[in-house]
């Protein structure tokens, strides 16, 4: 049972939780895999890990490698943290990154939108000056933070190789210089 201390929390993947076990084992290998429906008339990839296909209800799937790059679709920026270990990291960003893979499929508003915190290239929580550089439209790539055997957390960092928008959309009011 993968289990580890992470930012003051005990993260646990239960032995019966087959989908999350596989998802986080891939993350621990620093690879991003998602489930792909094997129904030949469907074949869609899904997130988060689940026990059936949201489009065709099929229960059979394969884990497939997915290019872990995309664009910030929206975000939250926490200034008043609740969990104690997050307080010293505030302000921190919660990013929803829309993957390039399967964007606008099967309908124009659907996409794989994968959550994570904003971190620097080394996987450390972003400092305030980096937070200010990221907004809707920023191009991101995934990095992993190791937690335990079989468990790493996927996060997002600015994609150094991508063309970044000149000014990604940020919340219009910057309070107290943050």
């Amino acid at each position, binding site marked *: 049972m993968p289990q580890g201390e*992470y*930012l003051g*929390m*005990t*993260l*646990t*993947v*239960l032995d019966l*939780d087959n989908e*999350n076990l596989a998802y*986080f084992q891939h993350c621990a290998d620093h690879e991003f895999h998602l489930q792909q429906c094997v129904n030949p008339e469907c074949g869609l990839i*899904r*997130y*988060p890990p689940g026990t059936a296909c*949201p489009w065709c209800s099929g229960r059979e799937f394969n884990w497939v490698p997915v290019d872990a790059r995309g664009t910030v*679709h*929206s*975000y*939250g*920026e*926490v*200034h*008043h*943290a*609740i*969990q*104690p270990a*997050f307080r010293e*990291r505030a302000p*921190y960003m*919660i990013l*929803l990154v829309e993957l390039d893979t399967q964007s606008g499929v099967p309908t124009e*508003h*659907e*996409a*794989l*939108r994968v*959550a*994570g*915190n904003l971190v620097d290239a080394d996987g450390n929580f972003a400092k305030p000056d980096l937070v200010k550089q990221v907004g*809707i439209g920023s191009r991101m790539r995934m990095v992993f933070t190791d937690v335990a055997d079989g468990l790493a*957390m996927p996060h997002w960092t600015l994609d150094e190789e991508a063309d970044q928008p000149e000014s990604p*959309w940020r*919340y*219009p*009011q910057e*309070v*107290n210089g*943050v």
Partner: protein
Amino acid sequence: MTTDIDTTADKYLRDKYAIIGIGETTYTRGSGMTTRGLGTWAIKNAMDDAGIPASEIDGMMSYSGNDSTASPMLAGDLGIRLNFYMDVQGGGSSSEALIGLAIGAIEAGMCETVVVFRSMNGYSQVRIGGTGARASVPVGGDALHSAAYGWFSAGQNFSPTFMRHMYDYGTTPEQVAMVKVIHSEHASNNPKAYYKQRVTVEDVVNSRMICKPLHLLDCCVETDNATALIITSVDKAYDYKNTPARILGVAGRVCKPRIDMHFQHGPISTVAGYYIKDLIYRNAGLGPEDIQCTGAYDAFTFTSMLQLEDYGFCEKGEGGDYVSSGIMRLGGERPNNTSGGHLCEGYTHGMNMIIENVRQLRGEVDDYCPTDANGSKQHTFNYAEPSQGGGCRQVPDVTITQNLGWAMPGTGSSLIMRQG
């Protein structure tokens, strides 16, 4: 799917049930009693309001997040023998859903008259935001994709929805702040409100940032309180003290696709109201243009705005204009949350907004206006602060109200009532 429902058929029970009693405790911080004590206090007040004895109540329902006391305890304390009870998990948007289920239980012959209550020490015991007892819960399963990212409290969870609305439609912090400004005006005329102080747009946007785009004053108050409603069929409803508030339609816990991670299905700035409107207006046989007073759940300023927009009170994307236009102010075309709501009166997971609309329909809102010799309110319709000669919060000639209950962007409930 809903387009095939013929809501003119008798089975939809339009106008056949009513709320006959309402009760609440004080809205406070530090109740000094258990949720059992608070719950019996609110239910007793609802019984006194209706003039109904314990012997004529035989059903009880409640909801909580393991922070309340179950129905059998309260019923026992109050001498109510139950033919039916059901205590469910849930927070916001449960009130309207349980009213619908109470109607179903009565219709099925399981009982005749049902109390629905919510009792919570939301400040002094279990705080909604996950502070206190809830902050140290081990993280596993689905929470590995949310709480592990410090994405935990309601405000944190909802923020990507709110931010995307600003991005998509140019909604400004100042527009949304008007929700708090207007609700604070209403609360100033409410002797029960926890926060009675009127605030300005500047007060809201200059208050400290909690989680963008939410300043402190964009967030609701946390309080200790209990609230109760009594529901029965129309053939009995007129046997009691007050004019019944008749139920025209109800929708309960209507969901967007995949609410555990609803962001997969956009537009993410669309909320459950988009789906609810097709059910509730068909069930009630009317449309948003017929609603004279709304109770749009204000866990945050943004939640009122997003719901009003997706139910069709304005065009999609124009919620910022709607909430800042003055329409939803007392004296405006369609006042919202005339008690001050969750932002100002107290936090009850939606119950107090239903209670307020029942009072509006009776014409008996408990404001600062004088009472005549018969105990009836003599409303002045002067909505200025009490110190300025105002103090009223009764909407004139209101006959149809709607509650817009919110659990999260992906889930909501609704209730439409008319004057009995």
